[in-house]
């Protein structure tokens, strides 16, 4: 079975640009969450979606947005990129029922120059 897949793997953007990151959860998983991991720190929660509804939002500015599609895949959008947005963005999925921990993807490394 395929795990959580994220695309692209690496990305370089210029300050002020917009970026879209994509995530496909494990088959059958209805819950998708996004985390930002700055170098040397633990992941920080950005969003969680379950069956296309937002279930949680972390302390991130409105430049960050996300959505979930009927097939449970998800996109994370970041507008007006800042140098500080450079990080590893992790997507995680779970069945959305009894929660025993996420399955994470390998992330998208975003560099803002």
């Amino acid at each position, binding site marked *: 079975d395929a795990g959580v897949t994220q695309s692209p793997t690496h990305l370089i953007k210029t300050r002020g640009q917009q970026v879209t990151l994509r995530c496909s959860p494990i088959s059958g998983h209805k819950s998708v969450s996004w985390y930002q991991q700055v170098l040397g720190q633990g992941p920080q929660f950005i969003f969680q979606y379950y069956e296309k509804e937002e279930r949680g939002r972390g302390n991130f500015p409105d430049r960050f947005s996300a959505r979930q599609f009927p097939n449970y895949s998800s996109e994370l959008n970041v507008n007006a990129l800042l140098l500080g947005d450079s990080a590893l963005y992790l997507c995680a999925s779970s069945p959305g029922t009894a929660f025993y921990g996420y399955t*994470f993807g*390998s992330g998208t490394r975003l560099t803002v120059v």
Partner: protein
Amino acid sequence: AQTVTQSQPEMSVQEAETVTLSCTYDTSESDYYLFWYKQPPSRQMILVIRQEAYKQQNATENRFSVNFQKAAKSFSLKISDSQLGDAAMYFCAYRSLANFGNEKLTFGTGTRLTIIP
């Protein structure tokens, strides 16, 4: 808001020996989940072990076990018979059960574990 603290930025252990990684957390809740995740250079976070707060028995998974002290809000990870493949960043994480359906994890800052051959 809950916080998770990992006070050991780096640890090292000889291959085949035992090492313990520390984690403390702050919460006013009585029911929650705790996790240890491993992040090797491949970047993917891998679930190592989980503990439900209402269970007094410490969780074990093969060579990995935890020492869960609820009153002290402590959740340490013991790795026995350390292997070269255990080298990674280890993150402690907390999940509140206060908000139904919210699966937010709060992570600590991590401990980098080095295995010495």
